[in-house]
């Protein structure tokens, strides 16, 4: 049943957010500390567990894959509900701070990535969206 997968995903998020909230309180911070990250770890652990296989394979797994495929549309909706006007109106100071922070952080990515064991580049991307448009046209 598709709902089993969706329920597992939802349970992981709720549990993760709760732990993140508790962590925040523990550290005396007014923020959720890593709730989503913890939820992701829970989902990875659940999908690797023997006992929960029935919740992550077959139709149940489709329930999780559906949301994972909905991710980009959700991000598009997220982009459309940002306060872009505030960013543009923030003036020169906000602009300079934002630009510098991003540029310097970008530059640090290859430097810090060199620390520790390296992982392999992912194989080239097959773009399902692009190919379906090509087929459609």
């Amino acid at each position, binding site marked *: 049943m598709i709902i089993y997968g969706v329920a597992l995903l939802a349970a992981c998020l709720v549990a993760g957010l709760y732990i993140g909230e508790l962590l925040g309180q523990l550290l005396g911070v007014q923020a959720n500390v890593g709730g989503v990250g913890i939820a992701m770890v829970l989902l990875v*652990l659940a999908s690797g567990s023997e006992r929960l296989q029935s919740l992550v394979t077959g139709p149940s797994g489709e329930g999780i894959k559906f949301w994972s495929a909905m991710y980009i549309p959700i991000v598009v909706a997220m982009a*459309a*509900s*940002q306060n872009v006007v505030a960013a543009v109106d923030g003036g020169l100071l906000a602009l300079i701070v*934002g630009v510098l*922070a991003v540029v310097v952080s*970008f530059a640090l990515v290859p430097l810090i990535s060199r620390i520790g064991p390296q992982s392999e580049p992912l194989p080239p991307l097959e773009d399902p969206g692009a190919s379906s*448009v090509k087929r459609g046209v």
Partner: protein
Amino acid sequence: METLSEVLRANGLIVAFTVVGITVWLSYVVSNRLTHGRIHGSAIAILLGLVAAYFAGLETEGRRGVADIGVLAGIGIMGGGMMRDFGIVSTAFGVHLSELRRAGVVGIISIFAGVIVSFVIGAVVAVLFGYSDAESITTIGAGAVTYIVGPVTGTAIGASSDVIALSVAAGVVKSILVMIGTPMVARQIGLNNPQSAMVFGGLMGTTSGVAGGLAATDPRLVPYGAMTATFYTGIGCLLGPSILYFIVRAFV
């Protein structure tokens, strides 16, 4: 017309699915026809979303982009924190624990490096713009971390409300630039494997920015970047009003 508007308003989330679906379709057509696939369809869709949010913000004077337009309020639900987090967690399906463990230490280093570097940049620019009190400098520095860390820090240490607003603006600029800029620089910064994606998430930290930027670069990298990014704001809120504030106070 009135009836249509009523139907649209009463079914916000469903309208959002329709509108976003059309936007994504249009973006992939543009990506293929005009750029021959060089600019990823999702990057164009995200950019369209931001442009729409800008004009909607000008029109409504609201803070939630197109979600402040009555008939499009559902976009705010679809793109809100709840659905975003649900979507992000779902992308972890199929991720291997070994990859996460391998990049774990580097991921943690990148979170602290990211918070501190962004903070220092924000603080230095604030000083260059003539701010001389520790509260304002710290708050603007915290805004460069993320647009959540800015106001949390500012409120905690008692900064003025215009400085807090400024810190939010700096954070929003950062978040939007990460969304737009990531696909452009991905190749140069080696953003093509799980490890660099985790470092990227830790350095950038803005969950929305990382989520959008990686989605437009290669959706398979999203779970790795999002994993570290979700710890960033928490660490920022931890360091901002405490250690970082004390350090700034020692300097001014």
